[in-house]
């Protein structure tokens, strides 16, 4: 584990930094993988401040999972962003990775907080200094400010609760704190728990704390957004598992678990409808990320083995999918310079690889068989039915179905339809450094779709570590639950087989009835002939009729971000008032000082 920290001090100089960056991340991944194969238990303690703090580190199995996700994401990202980043970027990125590793292996509050904080400020600096926003400074400042303030509120809230736990348990160890949280009954013990949970929700982007996510994702450097979505959003989940999982299995905590499940469902609904409204690619994916993470929380709230397996599977899927999608989007932005749907269109012919990549991505994202996205969702749905939380299930199905719309929007807005501001003749395929990781990711998604059982082995390890029952593992190709099973292997093969047969049939027809390919503008257009000027690309507005549905419209109209800014302004007003204590005027200061002295005297007189 100690070697994991070695990711830290790198990447400050020279062009070799790219190589160094990749090598170090590859090393990290390798080390982590080795730990899976031959589990080592090395706990590491460090007398940080003698008399005060001893930091302890150990990597549990689910910490390992998260670390692996982060390491692989980082590795792929480094590959995708080869050569376009300065040394400051690399230094900050590795620093952030180091912080993340510290956090994941922390055994006591201080090291946990340490990792958390390092991660926070290095991501902020990355976001701030290398922002990709083409907006004026105002926008970036607001976003960055929102990010850092909310991150810090969550961090300090957490710190406060952790110190409270220290006060109650007398120890700085995470394990002791967790035990205390679950041991104590009664309302007072819920408050620190709820506060701590809120801190983690904030970091994961659940309602109502999600406001920092879209802006940050939009304006961060593109490949870094991929990393944000794939790895950093999982930190909140890790923290939740660490502190609260045994809690949700506890019988006495039914209401809170139910509440969390609903928070997840509502977050997903709001996020999905907001995603449909988005006009730019990254914003859409950002809201999509919020929604997907919400599913994971709902699943965790259910608490059964199947649900937990589903949550973990969904998490892994989400990382894969978002990495894929963000990489391709980054590639497209780099090639075309455009970020919005109403600027793109018709790119399928020149960018077939990207098209297939996004296609695979959205099929998995929407949770459609035969790709891997379905199986995670299947586990979650089945577990909800088995638990009997049918209303929550309904609450989840709504955003799941609505997700189809934004998935379609993503692929249509970029690749299908008609080109608007891009010239399809000049478009080139995205550069190879995006293609290689994308290809790998696509292959993994397909593989997991074919053999969803592959995920069960590591999931079972985690489950047994958490003290839960393990899931039945019959074959690599299928998933099993008490109420039924599904075989990914068969599904993909059946679909593939039928597809092939039909395709052959159709092509056979082609001999007798060949296809005549038409010009792009030669379409059925209500009896008229469209020209180049006719606006034919349904880019920005796709999905706007969803707004007319009462629920969706209500959601989309409100903006929590604005409410936050308003609150922020109010608080700012209070701060201004406080500043009024300090007049710039000398005489007033002097008089106030004497008055103050008198007040102090009174105070001392009263006390003493």
């Amino acid at each position, binding site marked *: 584990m100690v070697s994991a920290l070695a990711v830290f001090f790198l990447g400050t100089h020279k062009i070799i930094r790219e190589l160094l960056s990749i090598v170090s991340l590859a090393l990290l991944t390798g080390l982590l993988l080795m730990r899976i194969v031959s589990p080592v238990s090395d706990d590491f303690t460090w007398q940080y401040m003698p008399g005060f703090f001893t930091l302890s580190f150990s990597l549990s199995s689910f910490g390992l999972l998260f670390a692996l996700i982060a390491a692989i994401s980082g590795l792929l990202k480094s590959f995708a962003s080869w050569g376009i980043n300065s040394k400051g970027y690399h230094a900050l990125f590795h620093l952030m990775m180091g912080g993340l590793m510290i956090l994941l292996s922390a055994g006591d509050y201080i090291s946990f907080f340490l990792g958390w904080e390092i991660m926070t400020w290095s991501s902020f600096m990355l976001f701030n200094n290398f922002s990709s926003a083409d907006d004026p400074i105002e926008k970036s400042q607001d976003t960055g400010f929102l990010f850092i303030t909310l991150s810090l509120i969550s961090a300090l809230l957490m710190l406060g609760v952790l110190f409270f736990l220290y006060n109650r348990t007398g120890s700085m160890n995470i394990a002791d704190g967790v035990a205390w949280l679950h041991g104590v009954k009664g309302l007072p013990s819920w408050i620190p728990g709820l506060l701590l949970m809120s801190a983690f929700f904030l970091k994961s982007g659940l309602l109502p704390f999600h406001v920092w996510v879209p802006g940050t994702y939009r304006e961060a450097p593109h490949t870094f957004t991929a990393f944000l979505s794939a790895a950093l959003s999982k930190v909140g989940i890790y923290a939740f598992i660490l502190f609260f999982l045994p809690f949700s299995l506890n019988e006495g905590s039914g209401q809170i678990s139910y509440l969390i499940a609903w928070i997840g469902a509502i977050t997903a609904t709001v996020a999905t409808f907001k995603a449909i409204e988005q006009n730019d690619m990254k914003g859409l994916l950002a809201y999509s990320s919020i929604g997907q993470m919400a599913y994971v929380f709902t699943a965790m709230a259910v608490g059964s083995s199947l649900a937990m397996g589903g949550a973990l599977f969904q998490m892994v899927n989400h990382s894969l999918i978002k990495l894929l999608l963000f990489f391709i989007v980054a590639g497209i932005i780099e090639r075309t310079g455009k970020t919005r749907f109403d600027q793109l269109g018709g790119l399928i012919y020149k960018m077939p690889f990207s098209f297939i990549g996004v296609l695979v991505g959205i099929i998995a994202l929407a949770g459609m068989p035969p790709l891997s996205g379905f199986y995670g969702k299947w586990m979650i749905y089945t577990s909800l039915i088995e638990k009997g939380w049918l209303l929550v299930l309904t609450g989840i199905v709504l955003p799941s179905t609505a997700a189809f719309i934004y998935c379609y929007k993503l692929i249509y807005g970029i690749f299908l339809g008609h080109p608007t501001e891009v010239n399809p003749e000049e478009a080139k395929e995205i550069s190879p450094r995006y293609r290689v990781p994308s290809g790998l990711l696509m292959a993994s998604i397909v593989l997991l779709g074919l053999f969803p059982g592959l995920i069960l082995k590591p999931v079972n390890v985690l489950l047994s570590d958490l003290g839960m029952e393990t899931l039945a593992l019959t074959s690599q190709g299928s998933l099993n639950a008490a109420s039924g*099973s599904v075989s990914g292997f068969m599904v993909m093969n059946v679909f593939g087989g039928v597809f092939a047969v039909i395709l052959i049939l159709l092509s056979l027809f082609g001999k007798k009835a060949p296809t005549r*390919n038409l010009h792009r503008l030669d379409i059925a257009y209500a009896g008229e002939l469209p020209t180049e000027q006719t606006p034919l690309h349904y880019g920005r507005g796709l999905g706007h009729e969803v707004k007319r549905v009462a629920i969706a419209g209500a959601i989309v109209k409100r903006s929590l971000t604005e409410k936050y800014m308003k609150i922020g302004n109010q608080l700012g007003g209070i701060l201004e008032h406080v500043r009024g204590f300090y007049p710039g005027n000398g005489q007033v200061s002097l008089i106030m000082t004497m008055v103050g002295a008198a007040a102090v005297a009174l105070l001392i007189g009263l006390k003493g």
Partner: protein
Amino acid sequence: MLFTIFNSLLAVLLTYSMGMLYYGFYRIGNARIHRRVGPPLWQNVIDNIKLFAKREAPGHGIMFHLGPVIMTAGTITSMLFVPFLKDSAWLQGFSSYGNLILLIYLMVVGPLGNALAVGVSGVPFGVMGVTRGLTRLIGLEVPFFLSVALLMSGSGTISISEIMMAQDSFSNWNMMAHPAAFIVSLFSFVGMMGASPFDVVGAPVEVYSGPQAEFGGKYLGFLAAQRVMFSMVKLILWVDLFLGGATNVFILMAKSFALFFFYFIVGAAFPRFKTEQAVDFMLKLPLIIGIGAVLVRFWSL
């Protein structure tokens, strides 16, 4: 395995012919309501053959070519995961490898694949139709899922065969055992079959749009064929879930025709909702009934 493949082919043939027959009846029935004579019973088959016999078909590239393929593949795959018969080795397809949740999602694969082809063709009206379809889907899926979830929860299983098996006598038909679920599912059923009041998506005649706007020739032939087969799949699914399944093909035909008749009557009688009205409606009345059913089930037990 060979047996299963043979069964699959059989299933395809069966649904195709049953579908064409039923829809032939649909056209005659509609015509008689409109005080017309109507086309012959097998008109649909004749139309289908005509489409395939056309000399050439306009296309927009590979993706467009693949669209109907995906659609048909999706339909047939869904078909193969629905057990047609109860207590029989025939016509089971691959249903032992899947379950109801899988099926619900498989049913969406086809239309989405076609959506890609519509997109690549560039017809904005087609895309509009697709979006309408997806939006309407929100309204349809939510109460449907709820009713099906009630069913699954009540039967303790998510496998269609098992749900079917559990209905061993008339009083045990899920239609009777879970009436609220059945009623709720009927709303979605009407929408999924594409009947008024939920048929704005492919609204015939009214608007020059719909997902099938740009397709012609063999493509349209495939789409027409699969539409019919898909409707049959849905009918059979409902029969399995709510009407007690069927032990042989004839009972299957009888039950599914009864359901089909219901759909036909509803479709002929009602006017059309706009998309958002449809979603709104679906998210209100059926959902409330469904929620009521859930509450009754879980809180009074």
